[in-house]
């Protein structure tokens, strides 16, 4: 069966109401308060899929650490907070910066929100979408250092109605068992954090020979 796979990439920068997609991010604040260590808090999940929170969180560490930052162990931080009376991401993201400084010693906090996570099954195709936004805040001053947004989408369609019906059914079976959105989440993170002029600046552990 002929099957076409389209991977649509989207990348936009959150920059007010103007929607200036291609304009480089203004790194003035980032350069003024360059962090060494980033505390990634468990993301808020605004998608309809409960798996979004952790399916997405589990692919955040790698792109960030490879950018040259110390990334606190995301699952240990999550469990630690739950054990200390903060059972939800909403509560974790309300922790005062002073407290974050005292407990973790982090230079900056990354607040993440999952906007879309999962698949929609129409008659002729299935579409999986993952999108998320992030905001990096300097712990010492409360200054916003960076904001970003990324979306990844994958859809399948063959242009053949009977074939498409089968594809959609097969996709539904595969997606529900392997959590395809999880793989797209990794692409979202790669895109959001590492895209030149829109992602994060390189951190102190980034190898100099790679930067050149």
């Amino acid at each position, binding site marked *: 069966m002929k099957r076409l796979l389209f991977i649509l990439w989207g990348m936009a920068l959150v920059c007010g109401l103007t929607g200036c997609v291609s304009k480089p991010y203004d790194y003035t604040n980032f350069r003024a308060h360059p962090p*060494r*260590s980033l505390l990634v808090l468990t993301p808020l999940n605004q998608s309809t899929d409960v*798996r979004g*929170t*952790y*399916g997405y*969180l*589990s*692919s955040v*560490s*790698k792109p960030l*650490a*490879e950018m040259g*930052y*110390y*990334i*606190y*162990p*995301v*699952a*240990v*931080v999550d*469990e*630690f907070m739950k054990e200390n009376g903060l059972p939800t991401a909403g509560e974790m993201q309300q922790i005062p910066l002073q407290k974050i400084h*005292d*407990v*973790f*010693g*982090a*230079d900056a906090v990354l607040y993440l929100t999952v906007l879309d996570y999962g698949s929609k099954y129409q008659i002729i195709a299935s579409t999986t979408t993952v999108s998320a936004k992030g905001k990096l805040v300097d712990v010492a001053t409360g200054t916003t250092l960076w904001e970003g947004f990324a979306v990844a989408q994958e859809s399948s369609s063959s242009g053949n109605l009977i074939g498409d019906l089968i594809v959609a059914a097969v996709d539904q079976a595969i997606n529900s068992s392997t*959590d395809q959105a*999880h793989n797209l989440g990794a692409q979202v993170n790669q895109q959001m954090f590492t895209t030149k002029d829109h992602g994060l600046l390189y951190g102190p*552990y*980034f*190898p100099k020979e*790679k930067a050149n």
Partner: protein
Amino acid sequence: MEPGEVKALSKPLLAGFCVMAALVFAGCRSPDTYYWGHYEDVIYGMYAHPDRVPPEVQIQKLEEDVHKAISANKPLPPGFRAHLGYAYSEVGKWDLARQEFEAEKKAFPESAIFMDRLLTNLAKK
């Protein structure tokens, strides 16, 4: 054209393509600094399938990675040792947990405040 000529032409062509492909790939993505192994899969699994990825399984996977990282001569990523230490503490292996928290601190001094806190909690056990 003789079959031999085609062969003679195709070899340098093929070599050229290989070189080009190598250059393209090298330009696109430099190799990872850290040996990631199962670290992120373990995080995904412990939440998505907690029954299949309990602390014992996390420990087994991460211990394998520690050996592979040594063979590959690559450092373990930030958070890896702390996670392994946490998994040890979940199954009551306090000494091993302590070792890993200390190792995280040594590899990444940024983690010291949090690791000391986890070490203090361990001391109460």
